[in-house]
């Protein structure tokens, strides 16, 4: 029976959605809507049906048709100039971000765009960045036509205010790859030239060609010294200037000693020098740096409101003409029109139309809020339903939400913490090294001047904490990968160290602790007969109001015919079922006297049948699955909640989070920021903020580590240090504990590399340090540290269940 039912439900050939209503049959295929059918026909006409052969149902639903008038602003030469990267007499080049891209069919279709619009010369997709680079002939087509074509086939590019602000996302720096390539080249060749030194029977060879090999090695090492290793020297120098010792200082001392002792040895003919070790160390340490730098290019961690806001908006002029204007130029007093699914860019008063505002970007609350004429609508909301007319009361950057970005927190540069493990280790390292070097000098000077110099320089060379400096990037890098596998994406490796120190966790409520798409519905009042319940459900089914839909989801049963159905905007519903007059709506609509109203803070919906008030429905938040588990895992960390909502859930939250938890309600975005500031004052607390909406953006930025919770990772999320997929919320405490564990692993790796240093130093102070010893000891120590870091993190991750 079930199998038969399933074959009856047809899936759309284009987008794969099940066709709930009658499927549209055309060309022997079923489509769920006209939009999908239209895209198919367009592709078929142009012989682009390979699209459907590469992947099954690759399309994007065409249910939400876009009005093409929306793209009128792209005809504006100013907007065009800001979006285009390159323009010549014939062609224009630009790059779009297309979040909908998801499969190889997408790549294929987007790279065959020229078949749909002959004005397009070439399109190249970068799938990981979800970008498409387009070249088109501006005589044959226009920017607007290109965007319209993309929108028509379902790949509407995300063009936001940030794109036109000139804040172009900088291309990933390739410097590290150049440095790595150069160091690798030099390392390989110098080692080849140094090889005869490792074997004693080639002494004759060394005798006749030694100086030639030596000078060639110097030649090969010079670019490594000046280009590849430059980063270590500049970082150490900056540290000295700020009177701080960082890990790069002992590294630089070691590298300098290695390089100049080698040159001295070769030029004076004393020996072959240690240039193979020098280039090798730079190469290995650059690998460590590269490993640490590799982050999630595709995720944007530093978005502000401009990444969410549209570029242009429809303005109604005095003569009722509509024109699109750049959002930046909106002035107080302008009248604007917002259509279905459009974002409101500035605080404005509602003048006309029925506003249902979805604030999910801002607060995480998914239920649209109804607004009546004359009410102020804050920027950041998305209109659902008919088009509305508004009058701007504040400029874009001065709005309730957007003024948050005027706070100084957002203009400050993020300074790298100097109190990282490796920097503290570096400080002790250089002290011990200098002591040992001085000791060797003190011991050898009265006995053998030559030996004294040798021992002194060898100590500086061997004590180069290169293996030590590799421990941190490798442990952090692998921890980052473990987190990424579990859908927790951190901005850079340093965040691991911040997370390990956290002692206070602050949560946003709506959308973070609660499941945004669900709410528990309870009924209070006189018991309903089954006939009454059926009548109520039947009336509710006729309404598209979100509250009606939530209640009807919670109720079960059949529906009956409804007569005289009416919906009063902002008030409620009325309808007749089997002769019963059912009215459902707000307290005011049903005439419930104010003193009899229960729990005014909660959202309530009252019900009356035939004029008698029966009772009311109330909505409770549903907390995320695994919340208890997370709270248990957090152990003795201080917990607080910042909610923009009212306090009707206070009792439930307090019970859930424990008595010590601090609960704050009715918090504005700025208050949230200030709360975190207060917590951090005096440096007593290391604060982790977990939030999801734009209203948490300030708090996320202000906290030591901000985690943005997101239902779809590539989607919008406010600026933060890490993005956590909502599905992995239950692992939050595991992540925190694991970052602590990874700090212990770093210490352990330090211990391993210290053993090598002790062995090396013992050889060095005795003056026995030779090129062959260095050629064996240095690669072994670096490679074993890399291997140890990698394996230990893997093992710990397995044990922690990540």
């Amino acid at each position, binding site marked *: 029976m079930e199998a038969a039912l399933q074959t009856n439900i047809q899936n759309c050939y284009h987008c794969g959605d099940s066709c709930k209503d009658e499927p549209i049959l055309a060309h022997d295929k079923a489509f769920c809507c006209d939009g999908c059918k239209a895209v198919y026909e367009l592709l078929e006409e142009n012989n682009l049906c*390979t699209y459907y052969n590469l992947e099954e149902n690759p399309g994007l639903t065409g249910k939400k048709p876009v009005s093409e008038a929306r793209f009128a602003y792209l005809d504006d030469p100013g907007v065009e100039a800001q979006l285009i990267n390159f323009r010549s007499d014939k062609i224009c080049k630009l790059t779009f971000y297309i979040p909908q891209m998801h499969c190889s069919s997408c*790549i294929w279709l987007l790279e065959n765009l020229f078949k749909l619009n002959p004005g397009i010369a070439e399109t190249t997709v970068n*799938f990981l960045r979800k970008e498409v680079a387009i070249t088109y002939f501006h005589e044959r087509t226009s920017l607007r036509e290109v965007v319209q074509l993309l929108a028509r086939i379902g790949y509407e590019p995300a063009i936001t205010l940030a794109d036109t602000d000139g804040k172009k996302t900088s291309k990933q720096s390739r410097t590290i790859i150049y440095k790595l390539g150069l160091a690798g080249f030099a390392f390989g060749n110098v080692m080849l030239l140094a090889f005869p030194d490792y074997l004693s029977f080639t002494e004759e060879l060394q005798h006749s060609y030694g100086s030639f090999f030596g000078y060639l090695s110097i030649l090969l090492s010079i670019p490594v010294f000046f280009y590849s290793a430059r980063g270590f020297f500049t970082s150490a120098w900056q540290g000295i200037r700020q009177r701080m010792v960082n890990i790069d200082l002992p590294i630089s001392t070691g590298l300098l000693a290695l390089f100049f002792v080698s040159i001295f040895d070769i030029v004076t003919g004393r020996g072959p020098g240690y240039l193979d070790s020098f280039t090798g160390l730079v190469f290995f340490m650059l690998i460590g740096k590269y490993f640490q730098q590799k982050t999630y290019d595709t995720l944007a961690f530093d978005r502000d409101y401009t990444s969410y806001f549209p570029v242009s908006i429809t303005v109604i002029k005095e003569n009722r003409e509509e024109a699109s204007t750049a959002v930046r130029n909106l002035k107080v007093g302008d009248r604007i029109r917002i259509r279905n699914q459009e974002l409101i860019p500035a605080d404005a008063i509602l003048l006309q139309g029925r506003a249902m505002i979805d604030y999910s970007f801002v607060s995480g609350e998914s239920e649209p809020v109804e607004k009546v004429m004359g009410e102020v609508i804050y920027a950041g909301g998305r209109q659902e339903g008919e088009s509305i007319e508004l009058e701007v009361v504040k400029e874009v950057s001065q709005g309730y939400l957007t003024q948050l970005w005027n706070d100084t927190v957002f203009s400050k540069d993020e300074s790298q913490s100097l109190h990282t493990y490796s920097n503290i280790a570096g400080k002790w390292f250089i002290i011990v090294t200098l002591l040992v070097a001085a000791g060797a000098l003190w011991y050898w000077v009265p006995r053998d001047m030559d030996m004294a110099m040798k021992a002194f320089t060898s100590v500086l060379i061997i004590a180069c904490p290169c293996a030590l400096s590799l421990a941190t990037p490798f442990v952090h890098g692998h921890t980052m990968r473990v987190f990424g596998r579990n859908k927790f994406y951190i901005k850079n490796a340093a965040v691991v160290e911040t997370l390990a120190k956290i002692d206070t966790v602050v949560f946003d409520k709506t959308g973070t602790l609660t499941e945004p798409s669900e709410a528990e519905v309870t009924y209070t009042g006189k018991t309903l007969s089954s006939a009454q319940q059926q009548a109520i459900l039947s009336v509710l089914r006729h309404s598209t109001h979100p509250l009606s839909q939530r209640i009807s989801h919670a109720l079960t049963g059949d529906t009956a015919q409804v007569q005289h159905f009416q919906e009063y905007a902002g008030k409620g519903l009325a309808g007749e079922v089997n002769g019963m007059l059912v009215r459902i709506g707000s307290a005011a609509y049903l005439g419930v006297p104010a003193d009899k109203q229960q729990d005014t803070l909660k959202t309530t919906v009252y019900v009356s049948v035939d004029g008698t008030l029966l009772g009311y429905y109330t909505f409770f938040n549903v907390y995320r699955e695994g919340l208890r588990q997370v709270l248990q895992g957090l152990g003795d960390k201080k917990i607080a909640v910042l909610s923009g909502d009212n306090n009707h859930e206070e009792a439930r939250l307090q019970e859930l989070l424990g008595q010590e938890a601090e609960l704050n309600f009715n918090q504005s975005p700025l208050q949230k920021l200030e709360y975190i500031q207060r917590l951090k004052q005096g440096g007593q607390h290391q604060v982790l903020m977990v939030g999801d909406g734009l209203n948490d953006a300030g708090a996320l930025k202000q906290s030591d580590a901000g985690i943005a919770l997101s239902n779809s990772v590539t989607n919008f999320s406010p600026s933060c240090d890490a993005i956590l997929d909502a599905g992995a919320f239950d692992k939050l405490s595991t992540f925190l504990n694991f970052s602590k564990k990874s700090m212990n692993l770093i210490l352990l790796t330090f211990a391993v590399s210290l053993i090598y240093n002790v062995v090396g130093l013992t050889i060095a102070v005795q003056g026995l340090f030779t090129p062959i010893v260095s050629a064996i000891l240095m690669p072994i120590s670096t490679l074993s540290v890399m291997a140890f870091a990698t394996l230990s993190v893997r093992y710990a991750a397995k044990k922690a269940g990540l």
Partner: protein
Amino acid sequence: MHIIFILIAISVVVAAGFLAAFLWAVRSGQYDDDYTPAVRMLFENEYKPAGKSEKLEQKTS
């Protein structure tokens, strides 16, 4: 044994050639995207009239 000078010179020149090739590859953006080209090379070139093969496939399915 003077041949060693020539051999070493040749080996360094060859290695430098590879280094130059690597730098060129980085500069031309070949290391920027390591996923899409791998997918792109699997797409068929469609020189034959695409409509024909399309209809054949529809019949078989």
